[in-house]
């Protein structure tokens, strides 16, 4: 297909604002799928995505409309995947910006819209769900128009559900979005905007060809990572895989690579031919690093091999998940896992529990820290228990956060942001009713129940988005928890010095309640270095013996003792103290209790 007949676009929309329904309608209307073939929301393939109403993995579908080839590139819909979104957008010349006519624009949609605008994409705005009685198409159109500096008349009004206005959307895509303008004769270059793992054929890369032409069986190379392979198969999704002989400039499709490791082919990298390689990679590649870390342990230590296999399999499809074995004295054998963000962590956890049927214990998440030791060495720390004690300075990651709320909740949001060491940047009225607040916040404050607090303090109205803004020094302390004089590695945390005392107290009090009395006094302490900041004592039992035991009772008493024995075996030993797993769980759940 000639480039001027090609249109590559993405849909930017908030969760539940109708992206998937619109995609379904487009497939139907263009005949890519008949209604009967239609599975609801074809683009979301994973069970979890459907249930949570979010799209994790981007894919691309080719449809035809009035003599044009339209490639719909799906974008992941969450804050943790900003980089992936930016790469998906980079593969397009335009984006449909879809906003729920009843709810107006949300922070994340706005953030993604800005990404698109920054990427010089043509924006086609649309308000959706105009069929709903509570819809306010005029208000939403005005808001969108103001945001984009366009006349509200240019905002399309549609109902993805009924199909109303969808043909006009397709027309607008053809008319308003520019055709690709790559150099068809230049050395071939393609942008990888997504990848997935096929258990029979290995890694499948989803690409947008920018220049030149790729042929099947051609030897290829990923320019940033240097990975070399052969294009076993080229094809397009319509939406089923359809092999083609070649993919030319402007086209979108897939490449079956035969590679066995998803992380050997990263999103944002540039593919080129080894026969006639390009000099320069496409711009914008980043090596995305996990920013949030947590220990994942099987509740039953016998499940460790299952957990390891499950993580291995998840990693096949999720190059941004990282993990390494971790041994905790308190929790046994497990893994320290790195995630792009909290949602990513939640998704991984749910998939482990649901798809692999594992019972897990997950430590409180922490962010990545950069510690400068007294000797001038810089170490990146992913586990609070490994934070060096002799520190010169610690840096923690900050984010630029934006929150959109009805104006009545501005105070509540400011209060929360202040409590969480946020520094105010600016405030902007999106409309008469809605305000966007921008803050800089430590990521560590966000991973600790920030989002839940935000939701509860704004009655669910706030929408929230953030992007990383680099590392900054912070007055941080490592708080250790000691039981019976011995440090419980899994409970160490890094926290701002101002909050250390309160948090230490909470943990210590909770543990005193949760750990059963032992045969000796057990001190429970929170300490910064060698300085104890909170202390409780679990008093020793004075008596633990069954009163009588005669002929008829012997079996029953024996069984009682065996039960007591079994109970002891299930406990974890810390400093000679038997700590039931429930105690760790209770402490790790302290966060969720605070929300109540």
């Amino acid at each position, binding site marked *: 297909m000639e480039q001027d007949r090609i249109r590559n676009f993405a849909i930017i929309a908030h969760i539940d604002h109708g992206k998937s329904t619109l995609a379904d309608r487009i497939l139907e209307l263009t005949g890519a799928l008949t209604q009967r073939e239609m599975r609801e929301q074809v683009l979301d393939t994973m069970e979890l995505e459907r249930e949570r109403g979010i799209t994790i993995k981007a894919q691309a579908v080719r449809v035809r409309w009035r003599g044009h080839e339209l490639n719909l590139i799906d974008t992941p819909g969450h804050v943790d995947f900003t980089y992936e979104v930016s790469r998906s957008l980079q593969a397009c010349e335009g984006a449909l910006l879809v906003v729920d006519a009843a709810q107006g624009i949300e922070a994340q949609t706005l953030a993604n819209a800005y990404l698109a605008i920054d990427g010089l994409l043509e924006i086609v705005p649309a308000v959706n769900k105009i069929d709903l009685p509570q819809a306010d198409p005029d208000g939403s159109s005005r808001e969108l128009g103001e945001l984009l500096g366009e006349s509200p008349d240019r905002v399309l009004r549609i109902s993805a559900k009924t199909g109303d206005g969808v043909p006009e959307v397709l027309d607008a895509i053809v008319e308003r979005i520019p055709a690709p303008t790559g150099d068809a004769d230049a050395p071939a270059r393609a942008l990888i905007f997504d990848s997935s793992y096929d258990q029979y054929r290995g890694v499948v890369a989803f690409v947008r060809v920018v220049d030149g032409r790729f042929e099947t069986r051609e030897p290829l190379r990923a320019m940033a990572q240097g990975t070399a392979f052969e294009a076993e198969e080229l094809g397009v999704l319509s939406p089923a895989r359809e092999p083609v002989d070649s993919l030319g400039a402007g086209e979108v499709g897939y490449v079956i690579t035969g590679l066995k490791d998803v992380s050997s082919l990263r999103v944002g990298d540039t593919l080129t031919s080894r026969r006639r390689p390009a000099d320069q990679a496409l711009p914008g590649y980043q090596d995305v690093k996990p920013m949030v870390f947590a220990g994942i342990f099987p509740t039953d230590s016998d499940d460790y091999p299952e957990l390891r296999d499950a993580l291995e399999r998840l990693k096949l499809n999720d190059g941004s998940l990282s993990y390494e074995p971790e041994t905790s004295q308190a929790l046994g054998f497990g893994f320290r896992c790195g995630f792009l963000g909290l949602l990513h962590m939640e998704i991984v956890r749910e998939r482990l529990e649901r798809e692999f049927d594992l019972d897990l214990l997950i430590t409180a998440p922490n962010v990545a820290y950069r510690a400068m030791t007294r000797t001038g060495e810089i170490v990146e720390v992913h586990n609070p228990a490994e934070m060096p004690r002799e520190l010169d300075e610690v840096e923690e990651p900050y984010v630029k956060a934006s929150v959109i709320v009805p104006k009545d909740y501005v105070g509540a949001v400011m209060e929360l942001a202040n409590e969480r060491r946020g520094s105010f940047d600016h405030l902007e009225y999106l409309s008469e009713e809605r305000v966007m607040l921008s803050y800089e916040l430590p990521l560590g404050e966000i991973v600790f129940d920030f989002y839940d607090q935000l939701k509860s303090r704004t009655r669910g109205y706030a929408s929230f988005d953030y992007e990383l803004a680099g590392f900054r020094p912070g007055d941080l302390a490592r708080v250790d928890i000691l039981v019976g004089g011995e440090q419980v590695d899994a409970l160490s945390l890094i926290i701002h010095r101002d909050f250390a005392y309160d948090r230490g107290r909470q943990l210590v009090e909770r543990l005193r309640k949760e750990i059963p009395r032992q045969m000796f006094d057990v001190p429970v302490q929170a300490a910064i270095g060698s300085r104890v900041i909170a202390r409780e004592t679990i008093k020793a039992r004075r008596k633990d*013996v069954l*009163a009588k*035991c005669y*002929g*008829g009772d*012997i079996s029953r008493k024996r069984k009682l*003792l065996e039960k007591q024995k079994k109970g002891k075996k299930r406990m974890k030993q810390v400093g000679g103290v038997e700590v039931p797993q429930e105690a760790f769980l209770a402490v790790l759940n302290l966060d969720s209790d605070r929300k109540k």
Partner: protein
Amino acid sequence: MGHVRHLYVHLPFCAHRCGYCDFVTVVGRGEQHGSYVDALLAELELEGDVLADPLETVFLGGGTPTFTDATELARLLEGLPAAEELTVEANPETVTPDLARLLRSHGVNRVSLGAQSFQPHLLAVLERRAAPDDVRRSVARLREAGFDNLSLDLVYGVPGQSPADLDHDLDEALALEPEHLSCYELEAKPGTRFTHAHGDELERQAEAMEGYFEQVVDTLTAAGYRWYETANFCLMGAKAGGRDLRARHNLGYWRGRDYLGVGMGAVATVSGERRRNVSSLARYLAALASGAKPPSELEIIDRETHEREKLMLGLRLDEPLVVAEVGDALDRKALSSLAERGLVDVSTNGRGEEMSLTRHGRFLGGGVTAELLS
């Protein structure tokens, strides 16, 4: 002739079922006492070949054995095999001068009195029928009849009991100079009427009552009693006149010996089999009336289980337990760590390696034993 040296005979009848009781008991039924004694003697006939002659001990427990119709009780005692120690449990209010004489004349040489408390308000909570005076009077009557080996049962941890109440009970008991005392913490067993009525109160008191066990042990040992088992005390040395006043029958249990039990709900452990008779009076009587053994549940006590029981029971005693006798039931690593923490004493002598709980260890005997079990 068999090897079993201990015989337990269960007499289930009671005037009233106390709220905290979870023993196998039957209220009233005067008309059935005769047929029950018939059944006991019949069962003894069927099972008796395992018994040694003479027996070391016979124990009549209940129920309230002394509530049994006197003529029938006498007939039972006459039908029992001879033993060196013959104990009968009695409730104070049932001990008349006649009964005391009857017991004595039929070879009973030890009486265990269910005193429980000397405080009217606590006796009321326990639903005991005896008044404090009944206890004192019954002791006097038994002494008069010639008994020189009496045991008193006391219960502590009763809802509403203060430390002063406990002191008072201990003083009263000591004033009667019993040869032996059994002091039990009240167990509120799930499903009993008592737990239903007082469970919450007991939970509230739990912490305050933690010291009661220490109070009992301190008071009785100071008064010259030997704390020879977790809940049992006996006079020793000069005060005992050189006698060993431990309950020999119960020592048999704690040393892991075989014993025969007859009667409804009675338990026997003989040659690796533990048998528990049916606890329905009607079914028990019917079986024996037809010449059959009563229905029972059987539990196999293999060598390993036996060793575990020996460890669990033996550690209740103040005499050392020979380590070799409990074999693999013992966790050696736990033993050394508990010894290090001062909860177990380990020594080696002519009998080999022995262990016993230290004083501190005995208060925590349950937890310590659970750790010692492999």
